[in-house]
């Protein structure tokens, strides 16, 4: 997917003026290997020096910068990358994503406090339980599309939170206290010093990024894209749509669960109110704001969404107001997201309503076509 073809696409009549994002994308597509590795190296250096106090003094003067980088920044990025698979790639609107985050967190918190197992193998259990719950939610509901799916997932998010709130076995409304920290690994002590958690978080994000990129560039990713574009046509071209939608849901849930276990291991104390609907909405905002379907965009979006409220801590309650105003401004000025994927930008230009699954419910070129099959 490099070379002249990519440049050609760009020269469509709809393209007006100069777009730095597209310019960068084209440069990246044509860049020789040494330039790419140079960028990778620069990113690694950036990630390693990011917790430095001199950066923190500007980025987060009111709270500990490294802690902010773990939660909310790192956690939001992890969650956004996971939700991006469901929303950005497979085109299903999930409003209850926080449920999987909660399931991961509760898995470690209850297993760690009750049985005293080691953290590292328990992470796998957390990921597994989250993906199983993704399948349990997905299997009966993924026949729904668009708005209806959104409503069901919204309900699921609340069910998980309310169940946690009312189950005494996992602490009920009081939550779980004294959640153990992970055991030392590679000479890093996970205790009060946030630095090891930062590196753990960086490792988790890197892992999930590689996972996500590999999937989306494979048969699986193509099937998701086809489903997002036209579910009926995809099925008639031999894509088992239900299976792939379920897979997207389960993988999104896995990543959510992964984020949850790490979060719980750092937090020491978790309670049902750590997993409100607004967190699902915030992560969705990060995905959409960054550029649904485009990984660098989604990561940037999550960073901005997580960091802005921390930066404006001096304004106390007004910071939420400022945050809201910034969101409105960004959506008004760049509706396709900060770093949009090509598809999404094109969808908005056409007015198909954007988000794949929802696009089907909104009038546009697609709705006329779907009438054909149901005629």
């Amino acid at each position: 997917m490099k070379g002249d073809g990519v440049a050609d696409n760009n020269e469509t009549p709809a393209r007006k003026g100069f777009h730095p994002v597209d310019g960068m994308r084209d440069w990246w597509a044509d860049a020789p290997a040494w330039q790419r590795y140079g960028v990778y190296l620069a990113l690694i250096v950036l990630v390693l020096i990011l917790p430095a106090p001199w950066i923190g003094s500007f980025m987060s003067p009111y709270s500990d910068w490294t802690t902010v980088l773990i939660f909310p920044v790192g956690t939001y990025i992890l969650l956004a990358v996971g939700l991006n698979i469901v929303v950005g790639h497979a085109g299903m609107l999930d409003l209850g994503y926080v449920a999987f985050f909660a399931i991961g967190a509760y898995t470690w918190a209850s297993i760690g406090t009750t049985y005293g197992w080691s953290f590292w193998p328990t992470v796998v259990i957390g990921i597994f339980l989250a993906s199983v719950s993704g399948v349990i939610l997905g299997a009966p509901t993924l026949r729904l599309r668009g708005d209806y799916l959104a409503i069901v997932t919204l309900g699921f998010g609340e069910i998980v939170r309310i169940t946690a709130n009312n189950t005494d076995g996992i602490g009920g409304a009081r939550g779980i206290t004294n959640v153990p920290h992970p055991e030392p690994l590679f000479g890093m002590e996970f205790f009060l010093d946030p630095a090891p958690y930062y590196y753990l978080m960086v490792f988790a994000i890197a892992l999930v990024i590689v996972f996500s990129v590999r999937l989306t560039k494979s048969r699986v990713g193509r099937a998701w894209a086809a489903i997002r574009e036209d579910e009926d046509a995809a099925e008639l071209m031999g894509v088992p749509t239900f299976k792939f939608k379920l897979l997207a849901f389960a993988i999104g849930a896995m990543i959510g669960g992964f984020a949850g276990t790490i979060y719980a291991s750092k937090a020491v104390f978790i309670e049902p109110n750590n997993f409100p609907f607004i967190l699902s909405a915030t992560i969705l905002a990060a995905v959409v704001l960054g550029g649904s379907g485009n990984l660098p965009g989604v990561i940037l979006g999550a960073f901005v969404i997580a960091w802005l409220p921390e930066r404006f801590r001096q304004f106390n309650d007004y910071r939420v107001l400022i945050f809201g105003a910034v969101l409105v401004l960004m959506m008004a000025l760049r509706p396709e997201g900060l770093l949009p994927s090509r598809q999404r930008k094109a969808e908005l230009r056409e007015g198909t309503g954007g988000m794949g699954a929802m696009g089907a419910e909104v009038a546009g070129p697609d709705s006329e076509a779907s009438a054909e099959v149901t005629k």
Partner: protein
Amino acid sequence: MSALLEFDNVTMRFGGVTALREVNLTINEGEIFALIGPNGAGKTTVFNVVTGVYQPTEGEVRFDGDRIDGMKRFKVTKRGIARTFQNIRLFHNMSALENVMVGVDAHHKTGAIGATLGLPWHRKEEKHGRERARELLDFVGIGRVEHNVAKNLSYGDQRRLEIARALATDPKLLLLDEPAAGMNPAEKNSLQALIRKIRDDGRTVLLIEHDMGLVMHISDRLAVLDFGQKIAEGLPHEVQNNQKVIEAYLGVSEDAS
């Protein structure tokens, strides 16, 4: 010649509307069979019944000896039936190559684990998919636009891309729903050549088309539908002179009745 697709007394009702009434059809292996009839006669319904979009109310559909009515859509595709759409339904924001690769993927097996770990068979399948997709784009004559996003292609190229995507699933039977709609005479001529080439590749073609010139020229046999009923079937020149067909298209003259 053996029968590839058989419609045995197929009736398709939607509430009070009967879209197909006791239709019997036999399409033989290796032929180009055309389905014609006025608008609303039920031609696209036939396609939807064959590809599993609808389950017939009554009757049986057999493909290659096995019943396929009620089969899941993607299984019908894997079984060897692929189609194009009357209104183009490409994956508009994917490149031409990716569109075709989705079709090739129908016979691939790699799942999430193979793709994540980059296992050898996954790489082999990716390579096969890309090569096969390129071959098919060249076959239909649009190899030069493989990196273009589908919706940026010209109308004729989009129609060809739909055919390439359908061929990618390696069908025994290819259903073309009005492939010549909106094409100019030159494009129609090369489409005709393409359909012949597909048949010569050993595939059977079932075609819905309104362009009589093209239909008469290209099809081995054809059937005429009117109000959901088959009113004629046979060789092109036989059907052309069939009184019922003339009436269906032109109406009954006052003198005759």
